[in-house]
């Protein structure tokens, strides 16, 4: 958790409050609100959680408790090209771990981290349901199937050139 306070854009805060209102500021809708908030901001910094807490009248500790419970929510900004490696069983037995290691090696970051230039972030997914293509890697919305460790360099290169 970084202690650096970030500034939120007024328009984004307005949008977020709008989202809360659209759910009638119902505390029971916390998870739906968090989903929308993450769509707006890309991640859920503490400031965003504070806004949601006061709108929904849910203690911010509890908001944080919920955010840290679900792996889908993140408090660190994702890279411009978020890389997710499926580590479901089907991908595991077809060598996902080696692919993951290769990404770590190439990008010099660990799972959950973002490269210094903000370009790539690395995360793991549990089964995207494309087991026929195992091992599967997703970069943004694009899915790469049957990825071999040797392909990793090439894949990263296509994005580095963007």
């Amino acid at each position, binding site marked *: *958790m970084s202690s650096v306070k*970030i500034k939120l854009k007024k328009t984004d805060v307005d949008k977020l409050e709008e989202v809360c209102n659209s759910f009638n500021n119902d505390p029971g809708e916390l998870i739906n609100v968090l989903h929308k908030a993450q769509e707006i901001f890309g991640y859920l910094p503490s400031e965003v959680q504070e806004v949601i807490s006061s709108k929904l009248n849910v203690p911010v500790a509890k908001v944080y408790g919920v955010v840290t419970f679900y792996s889908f929510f993140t408090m660190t900004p994702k890279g411009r090209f978020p890389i997710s490696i499926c580590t479901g069983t089907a991908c595991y037995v077809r060598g996902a771990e080696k692919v993951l290691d290769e990404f770590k090696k190439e990008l010099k970051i660990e799972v959950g981290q973002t490269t210094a230039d903000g370009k790539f972030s690395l995360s793991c997914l549990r089964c995207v349901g494309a087991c026929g293509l195992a091992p599967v890697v997703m970069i943004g919305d694009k899915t790469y199937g049957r990825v071999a460790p040797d392909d990793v360099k090439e894949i990263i290169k296509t994005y580095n050139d963007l």
Partner: protein
Amino acid sequence: MENIKLTIDNKQVEVPAGTTILEAAKKINIHIPTLCYMSLNDMHIENKPGGCRVCVVEVEGRRNLAPSCATQVTEGMVVKTNTVRVLNARSTVVELILSDHPADCLICAKNGNCELQTLAQDLGIRKITYQGEQSTYREDTSPSIIRDVDKCVMCRRCEMMCNEVQTVGALSAINRGFNSVVATAFEQNLEKSTCTYCGQCVAVCPTGALTEVDHTRQLIRDLADPNKVVVVQTAPAVRAALGEEFGNAPGTLVTGKMAAALRRLGFDYVFDTDFAADLTIMEEGTELLGRLNRFLAGDKDVALPILTSCCPAWVNFFEHSFPEMRDIPSTARSPQQMFGAIAKTYFAEKIGVHRKKLIVVSIMPCLAKKYECQREEFATDGDPDVNYSLSTRELAHLIKQSNIDFNHLPDEDFDNPLGESTGAGVIFGTTGGVIEAATRTAYEIQTGKTLKKVDFEELRGLEGIRSATIDFDGTPINIGIAHGLGNARKLLESIKDGSNKFHAIEIMACPGGCIGGGGQPFHHGDSSILKARQKAIYTEDEMKTLRKSHENPYIIKLYEEFLGKPLSEKAHQLLHTHYFDKSKKEIFID
């Protein structure tokens, strides 16, 4: 309700439907060990997440073991609480907890009072088979409470107290799996949270994960310093509980022994917060009558009901959660702070000591008092009116450290002039007491008549929210009482939406009032202890010859010699305060 027959460890027992196996077993003196489970049944407070799995038992016909705290009995159920399977499972579970727990028992604040330690001892655990990674967290020290989260066993009692009972919401379970723990938002320090320092989390924590900030070392140094005059004040609830730390039955009054012990510890003056409680009644009662009379005279702008302000956790609570209502509570400072202000002015002058050389220490059943005496507005030139505050538990430790045989001490009296009090001051220690004390005085001042009976039974009890109407010689005065901040919140909401019309309200942050404070000897979930303490408080009141604050001769003298009259300018300066809006969150917006 229908009864259910079952067998536990080959013994028949009949209990009402809805009873748990744990409760049914207790009925026939089978004590199944528990850890996360806690019930203060008289307060309707219960923690039953079924998470620790220490209380598992074998139920015939069931595939796996059943948590006895959460499993309700059924007709003909056959339960076994001590088979090899159960014992192996139980000790393995405790070993697992221990495997993720620091083994620094000898120097832990909870040593000897730790429920996990007792459990490990009772189960005869001699080694931890499953060793592995232990979780580590940053320690958090606030003015009142220390969080050593490494020792958290995820019983969730603190979380339940903070959220369900107190509705403060400073704590929540965070993360998941092995990394889950109870913490504050963003794992920041308590100081940055909405924590009121009520200390109820500390009161229920089974281990050393939540403890109070300890001032005994500092006190020992101050007592030894020949250049300092050290004055102590003791809150009313302390005398009703301190004895428990020395093996006395709950509810044993140890007022005299406590005074004797304090004197043996080396305090120069042993005074009583009860004196300041009487003073509080004078100020708060007068303020109440002032507002009331303006209201009765038709003044629409007057803020009613008046709310008591002697509980510091309650003050923190409304500053955080109801800042818009901060003109309603009485401006009277708490007895602790009134005492400090008078000690460092009136008394310091009297004995001719500069206030900076006078150390005022308080013994409180409370952890929020540690924070309260550090509030900037309660200091003159950086010198706090009350230097620091110790809990009942810390005092007990100190007495033990100083080789004092507490139980064989003679009963001694407090010193004067700040040691004299009436029964009204004593009952501040329990829920309903402050308002009863205020009523005794306000009634006589308002009506000019003497009360025939000073006991207002209608204001007493342990129900979370109570109300009563007192006849002030023809004028009905509506009084509301809430203890536990969750109940306070309900009462405040009802005032806000206009569904309740009270003239005066007493609020205490802790369930039971100060007798159940966060600094008291641990009740370990036994609410009969709280009841016994409450009874003791009323007994002490009854034993007093003077039972109304305005009859305290030293109070009368204080006004004559120093303050003038209640709400005088001097009284305002020394005995009243103002409140802050702490609800603002730091959210930067571009």
